[in-house]
């Protein structure tokens, strides 16, 4: 009875972080390791999407908004994939002048020819460059505002995905084949930089970090290439950053789920294309597996009933956290997002495989 009472009053923060600490928690949490700001929140705050990437106060307010608006059990920043590359000297385009919503991209890269790969170095003050300080200031502000209630999350690109930001992707893919040693040397350097930043992010207030190696699913790279040029660097990163730490890879990951599980993360996050049941067959019941609500087709285009069905499918597939397959596309209606959270609350204990075995 007493323990039941204790579980009943768990905060989102305790629920999210308790699972990583091996504590008994009351139910599956509904949160994310990736971006989840909504246009509803931006309208309420009076911000345009391009403004929230470079202003710590706006970033913090937007980052905390999903908790306030639909009870999401986390606050995650940033949203764009350019922070790491920008701090290395790349130039970002935030699409300030475009009316519809676009995520920033890199418009000027720093590697222009394969020979430039070996010239990339990580400056000693890397975490102080570009917008890293903005993210850190915002992490601190969020922590102060709602850090007692929800877990504060942030993320970094994996080294291969980051390499794709600082050089031409066509070249990078071909070099994986033609010059794997040179690619590995570059990725090793980038991994060092990411480790430095991950430590600073933790100090700044991040409770958990997701490494998003988005460019490495088997829609793109063979399991053999994954083993040769992706896995060693992920292993290095996860062995040197603090828990909780999650590995996310988009796209098709069933062929590499076993290797993902060996990278040293505390949890694996997969996207819609992953067959959860097959994944569990490979990795077994023990590893933490997070996923996989389609952040566009279901959360934007679906009905609340579609959302409920998708949540149940993920839970029944054996996930330990219901979270979206990628960023939540900001125009997702609040009714769908609330349905996601409510469905997890309703079934997150009863149907949670880990709790019931």
């Amino acid at each position: 009875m007493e323990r039941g009472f204790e579980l009943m009053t768990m905060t989102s923060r305790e629920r999210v972080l308790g699972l990583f600490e091996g504590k008994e928690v009351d139910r599956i949490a509904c949160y994310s390791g990736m971006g989840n700001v909504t246009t509803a929140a931006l309208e309420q705050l009076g911000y345009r999407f391009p403004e929230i990437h470079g202003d710590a106060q706006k970033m913090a307010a937007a980052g905390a908004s999903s908790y306030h608006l639909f009870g999401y059990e986390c606050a995650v920043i940033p949203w764009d994939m350019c922070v790491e590359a920008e701090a290395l000297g790349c130039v970002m385009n935030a699409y300030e002048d475009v009316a519809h919503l676009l995520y920033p991209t890199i418009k000027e890269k720093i590697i222009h020819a394969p020979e430039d790969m070996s010239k990339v170095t990580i400056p000693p003050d890397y975490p102080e460059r570009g917008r890293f300080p903005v993210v850190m200031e915002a992490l601190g502000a969020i922590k102060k505002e709602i850090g007692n209630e929800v877990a504060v999350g942030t993320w970094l690109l994996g080294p291969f995905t980051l390499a794709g930001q600082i050089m031409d992707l066509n070249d990078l893919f071909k070099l994986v084949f033609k010059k794997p040693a040179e690619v590995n040397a570059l990725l090793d350097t980038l991994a060092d930089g990411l480790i430095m930043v991950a430590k600073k992010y933790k100090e700044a207030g991040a409770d958990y970090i997701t490494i998003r190696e988005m460019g490495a699913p088997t829609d793109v790279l063979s399991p053999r290439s994954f083993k040769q040029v992706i896995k060693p660097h992920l292993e290095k990163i996860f062995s040197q950053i603090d828990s909780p730490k999650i590995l996310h890879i988009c796209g098709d990951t069933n062929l590499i789920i076993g290797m993902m599980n060996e990278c040293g993360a505390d949890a694996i996050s997969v996207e819609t294309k992953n067959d959860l049941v097959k994944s569990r067959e490979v990795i077994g019941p023990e590893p933490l597996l997070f996923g996989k609500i389609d952040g566009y087709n279901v959360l934007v285009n679906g009905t609340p009933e579609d959302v409920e069905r998708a949540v149940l499918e993920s839970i029944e597939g054996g996930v330990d956290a219901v979270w979206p397959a990628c960023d939540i596309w900001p125009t997702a209606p609040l009714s769908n997002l609330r349905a996601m959270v409510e469905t997890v609350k309703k079934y997150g204990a009863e149907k949670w495989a880990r709790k019931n075995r």
Partner: protein
Amino acid sequence: MATEKEQELLEKLANGVVNYDEEAVKEAAQEWLALGLDPNKAVFDGLVKGMQECGRLYEEQEYFVPELLMCADALYAGLDILRPHMKSEDVGVRGQVVMGVVQGDVHDIGKNLVKVMFEAAGFTVHDLGRDVPLEKFVEEQLRTDSEIVALSAMMTTTMVGMKNIIKAIKEKNPKAKIMIGGAPVTEDIAAKFGADGYAKDASNALKDAINMISSLRDLT
């Protein structure tokens, strides 16, 4: 009927593409021309056939993107040699296509692979590149009077923009056929956005495009 020598060269071309062996492809293409044979045949029954096999290997998860990019390089090595000798009237299907990756998206690998197939099939390709603003597609379609506009997006976050482009082009020129493709695109989304075709991969894109052009010609 292809002679034994022709057959051997066609296989060398196709295998050269599949094995991303640019040198073998170049040799075979040069030998083909030296024998005075029809360059169109070398492209369609050699290079394109090889690329279709690469597509199959990709579907079977034997080949992945790096392999496909190298296969495409091998195909181009052959095409560069053969194309100057191709007479346009000999090409079965001809048409123009405007293609590009939508604004906000800088991933152009898929688009480039589709482009290879269009070029090999004798289409005139107006390649707008990547991160292309909406208006650019509309203007280029009007300027070139292309039958087809092919839009690509690698990320969900940019796929959404396709809807507006399709609407804008259809308003200005209802006859233009629009096909969309890219990792997050599905048949459902294509239908929802009002696209005429959806291409899962490069060789499907080409098949679809050829069908679209034939249907356009039937109308006129």
